């Protein structure tokens, strides 16, 4: 038996919005530690890793580990039926081929439940090694989304260059080039508005803009975003999900021209 109750059903809505552009379907692995999801996009360039800890739920029970393969478009249809202030309960029997979503309205006078067929997905799990990143940039998530959106107009790839002074996003394309520089600023008043950089050594990497833009669909989940970079390893874009978990996106760098 699996049962997870979340008072803020909007969290799951936002999580879904954050992954459905990259993934068509995904497997939610439920264990007594929580719910995990790991999946690559179709082109195998990026990886989504979602973790929702069991203690973040208002009620959580998972007797046996179960893997629930879901079509995310179908899940989106179901989540659309929930109001933001509904209380959500996910339920599944052991070895079941369906999962049930129960939405209770805040004043308890409306209860709706939706049952969804599960899928058997042939998924590949990737082992993600622990890495000491050369640069870790924390910045407001809205700012990051804005930069990605703006630069996407100019070119297909973005060069992220990080030094002690700041971080620079640049791109060039048919109409010209664009550069956005952010200086490190520790805004004491509002921590979520500050840009902080922890740097071991400067890094310059080249990434496909398209994926970064897909990652920024997670912006509503968190006011800040953390970018971790090291030479010749995938970029990590991490959004915290309240005190319940996180969503991490890994993006493989583009092949540099010199290397080619």
């Amino acid at each position, binding site marked *: 038996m699996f049962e997870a109750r979340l008072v803020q059903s909007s969290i799951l809505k936002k999580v879904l919005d954050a992954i459905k552009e990259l993934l068509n379907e995904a497997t939610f692995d439920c264990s007594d530690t929580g719910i995990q999801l790991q999946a690559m996009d179709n082109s195998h360039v990026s*990886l989504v890793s979602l973790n929702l800890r069991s203690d973040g739920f208002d009620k959580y029970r998972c007797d046996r580990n179960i893997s629930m393969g879901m079509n995310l478009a179908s899940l989106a249809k179901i989540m659309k039926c929930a109001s933001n202030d509904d209380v959500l309960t996910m339920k599944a029997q052991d070895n079941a081929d369906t999962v049930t979503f129960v939405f209770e309205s805040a004043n308890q006078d409306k209860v709706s439940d939706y049952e969804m067929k599960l899928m058997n997905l042939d998924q590949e799990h990737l082992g993600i090694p622990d890495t000491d990143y050369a640069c870790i940039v924390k910045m407001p998530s809205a700012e990051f989304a804005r930069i990605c959106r703006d630069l996407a107009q100019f070119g297909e790839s973005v060069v992220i260059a990080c030094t002690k002074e700041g971080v620079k996003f640049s791109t060039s394309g048919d109409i010209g080039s664009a550069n956005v520089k952010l200086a490190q600023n520790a805004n004491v008043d509002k921590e979520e508005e500050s840009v902080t950089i922890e740097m071991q050594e400067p890094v310059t990497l080249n990434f496909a803009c398209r994926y970064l833009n897909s990652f920024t669909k997670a912006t509503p989940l968190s006011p800040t975003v953390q970018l971790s970079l090291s030479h010749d390893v995938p970029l990590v874009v991490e959004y915290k999900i309240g005190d319940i978990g996180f969503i991490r996106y890994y993006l493989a760098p*583009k092949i540099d021209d010199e290397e080619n």
Partner: protein
Amino acid sequence: MFYHSDSPANNEASENSQNAAPIASLLKRRNMSRSKTVNLVSPSITEDQKQIPKEKRRSTPHKIQLCNNTAPLSPSRVLSQLPISSPPTEGKQEHSSAACGETVSSENSCMKREQVSKMSENRKITEFFSVRRSVRKTKTTMLKERQQDLEEAILSQTESGLAVYYFERKGRGVVATQTFRKGEFVVEYAGELIDMNEAKLREMKYAQDENTGCYMYYFQTKNMQYCIDATAETGRFGRLVNHSRNGNLVPRVVMLKGSPHIVLMAKEDILPGGEIMYDYGDRSRESLQYHPWLAS
């Protein structure tokens, strides 16, 4: 990367498209593909080549190019002029286009191809993170899970798949009503956990009454001697399991919340109807004298 084709024509073509800005390269490609179409129709014309800029000629050596096409065209004009187009000239797609010269009806599909070729410049995430080939678990996780399953079985006091059966000669026994696979939990030897001093006292007490059977399970774990006394009649099945020197169960000690429990595990596959038995392990002469069945 598929740029590294051996054919010089391919190399030229891909270089050409890489250096140019995307839209411009798209136009150039269209030009080339057009000239190729002409080429297919009338392969004998060669004079026009002289009027074509060098770079263009190098890119596809055998082509014929109409001279008025050398100026860049607007996208719409290209579309109107070119009913037939080949896929982007990079690498592996070259030969297929030459072979079938497939019709491309809209700007859109061409853009898609462009995107595909661009994407191939990206590394794959699998180059950095290795795929876990299977969902195999490490030994420690296996053991942990096993331990968890056992703890769960003990806590829930499950005794499913078993029934008490009265045997003519030896009295009560327990038979399986379902299949138990080798290594599976069958039943717990449930009783009261007592220390050795208490056990000695109780032994003396039980010895006074001949009708008391032997339900004292002595065992040692973590350098401590314990005894589980199941003499008291309970509904549990573990205490009713009979002895056999080569039974189909094997006892194991499981620590649960700091206190030891004895569980009986299947030593081999047990079929429904089969009596479950384990070795009581008592080989002392005195015991054998009073209980000759211990030898069998």
